[in-house]
């Protein structure tokens, strides 16, 4: 089975897992920090709108940010307390740009709002499940943070036949999904069944990398008799990527430029399933998540259940602080995670890990010229030519890079990892994708403004035409009046003459 799955895949790399640092640490709760910084932009899509005012008292789970537009998610208070600020705060993003953030000062009670919960969540209609998932602000907890309800609603009508639960967790260091499946397998399976009901998929597969035998055993035990099939998949990076996982489990490839739904598959993270269970069985919105705090510079690597909005440094401090000055702080995994510019940035829904890496771990010698060894081509799980794409991007020819399949790059970082010359290949691709997106935006704007300019020109012409028309009419009217006056005067003259003659 495993051999077969391995044969189906191309590319991939085998970075040193380093999961042993935190894999044996059971999930424990982070002591409540004094202040929580809840970002209103925790998901892909439009930022939420604040629904509270400064000074308001909120209870845990209360709605504090409403969704805006189609692709968005609401935000809830992660603890009870007072709103002390609504404004810009540094975001956990490599840009370090500020985003609208609600700051809550905890009152220490951590009191939940009273929720009404359905007696039997499994009896809910699929639409209701999706609506509740939406109201609970659940987003993909694997890292991409795409609003889950949008995914559920899109899948319901489009004939999804297979629901795949992603327990791959292929990023080195991260163990949050592993621990979740080990410690809370029952809840995860209950959540999986709810998602299955919401999308009506007959087949449910859970894919777990074979380097997590305890998680596989726990999930198998919990899933016994439910129809959910737990499968071990080979450990390699990027097995936790949607496209790779689908290929390993059912042997189908997502077409270039397509989505998983095109081949009748929906993929959700196991963490999301847990959040769905919490939302439907207990009525609790997504206000906390499991985070792996690890890395060579961390005193005691742990898996923490932390409230959303907790500052990263609070988590680091709870895990024994830094053994020595970390060379780099990373949010997410070391392969695809984002560098943290500031240890004070808050946790968001998509944060799967907080890593403090040592110089040895990041090992970043300066890049050397490409010798066309094609190691990156062998590493690419999509089957692209990273060296060729990077060469074109460096020469400024982005269109040629797109022709080579840039848009299908999943930015997994396997090529950069494998490159013996340490060329920052994935950085080139991220830059190119960003630049292309900016160009696309500029083009849309240009088209829109062109229409505006045309409309204005037309209007100006029309006004000029109407003015001319009006002037002509006025002239005509004046001429007619003059003629009438003249005629009247002549008639009067004639009249006087007549009277004179009479």
């Amino acid at each position: 089975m495993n051999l077969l799955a391995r044969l189906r895949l191309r590319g991939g790399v085998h970075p040193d897992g380093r999961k042993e640092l935190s894999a044996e640490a059971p999930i424990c709760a982070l002591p409540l920090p004094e202040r929580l910084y809840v970002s209103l932009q925790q998901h892909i899509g439009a930022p939420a709108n604040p629904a509270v005012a400064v000074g308001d008292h909120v209870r845990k789970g209360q709605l504090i940010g409403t969704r805006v537009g189609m692709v968005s998610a609401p935000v809830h208070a992660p603890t009870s307390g007072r709103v002390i600020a609504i404004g810009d705060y540094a975001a956990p993003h490599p840009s370090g740009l500020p985003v609208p953030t609600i700051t809550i000062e905890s009152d220490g009670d951590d009191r939940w709002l009273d929720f009404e919960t359905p007696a039997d969540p499994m009896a809910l209609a699929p639409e209701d499940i999706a609506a509740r998932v939406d109201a609970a602000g659940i987003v993909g907890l694997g890292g991409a943070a795409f609003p889950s309800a949008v995914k559920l609603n899109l899948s319901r009508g489009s004939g999804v036949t297979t629901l795949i639960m992603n327990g791959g967790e292929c990023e080195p260091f991260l163990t949050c999904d592993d621990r979740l499946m080990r410690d809370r397998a029952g809840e995860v399976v209950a959540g999986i069944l709810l998602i299955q009901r919401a999308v009506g998929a007959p087949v449910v597969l859970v894919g777990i990398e074979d380097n997590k035998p305890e998680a596989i055993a726990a999930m198998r035990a919990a899933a016994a008799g439910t129809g959910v099939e737990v499968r071990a998949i080979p450990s390699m990076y990027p097995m936790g990527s949607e496209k790779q996982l689908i290929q390993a489990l059912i042997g189908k490839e997502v077409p270039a430029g397509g989505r998983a739904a095109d081949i009748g598959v929906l993929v959700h993270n196991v963490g999301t399933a847990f959040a769905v269970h919490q939302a439907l069985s207990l009525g609790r919105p997504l206000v906390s998540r499991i985070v792996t705090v690890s890395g060579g510079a961390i005193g005691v690597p742990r898996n923490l259940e932390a409230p959303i909005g907790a500052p990263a440094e609070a988590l680091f401090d709870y895990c024994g602080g830094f053994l020595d000055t970390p060379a780099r702080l990373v949010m997410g995994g070391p392969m695809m995670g984002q560098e943290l510019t500031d240890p004070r940035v808050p946790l968001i829904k998509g944060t799967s890990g907080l890593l403090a890496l040592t110089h040895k771990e990041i090992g970043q010698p300066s890049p050397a010229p490409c010798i066309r060894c094609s190691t990156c081509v062998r590493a690419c799980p999509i089957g692209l030519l990273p060296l060729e794409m990077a060469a074109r991007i460096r020469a400024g020819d982005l269109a040629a890079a797109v022709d080579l399949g840039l848009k299908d790059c999943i930015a997994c970082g396997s090529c950069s990892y494998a490159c013996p010359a340490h060329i920052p290949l994935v950085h080139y691709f991220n830059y190119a994708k960003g630049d292309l997106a900016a160009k696309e935006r500029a083009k849309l704007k240009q088209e829109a403004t062109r229409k505006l300019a045309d409309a204005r020109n037309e209007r100006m012409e029309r006004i000029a035409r109407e003015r001319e028309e009006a002037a002509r009419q006025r002239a005509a009217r004046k001429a007619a009046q003059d003629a009438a006056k003249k005629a009247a005067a002549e008639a009067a003259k004639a009249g006087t003459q007549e009277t004179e003659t009479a």
Partner: protein
Amino acid sequence: MIAAIASLTALGLALGLGLGFAARKLKVEGNPLVAEIEALLPGSQCGQCGYPGCTGAAQALADGGAPVTLCPPGGRDLVIQLAAKLGVEADLSGVKDSVPSIAEVREELCIGCTRCYKVCPTDAILGSAKHIHSVFREACTACGKCVDACPTEAILMRPIPVTMQTWYWGKPALEAA
């Protein structure tokens, strides 16, 4: 001598006649390139290039009478595209790598004279007499016409602020050769 003169004259005459006939047969109506170039230009008819609107500029470009660097709102990308279309070398040294910007009305200086919105080619300024004007971000092309028209220097060009949605990684520094 006579033979040489006569034969060369005859040759020249024959070729000249042939070419004249061909020129008539293969006459090109207008320049199809103009339409292609016009599609590349911003189309906001701002007139900063000195030609009456984008059609005029496209005509001048196609005739080779204008440099490819003529369009300030188009920026560096447009120069590169035009150079590729026209098959000329683009001199990018004079082109500012213009950051996308938009006009902004400084409210404390605006006297509500309506001059700016009368010149705006894309109707991006809203206002009426004796009221403070403001700019629609989505419609502004940063052509700068309003800046010239404003009597109180209340309009200035500001770079569009980078947000989380528009931020992206910069180009990596070149590796050591």
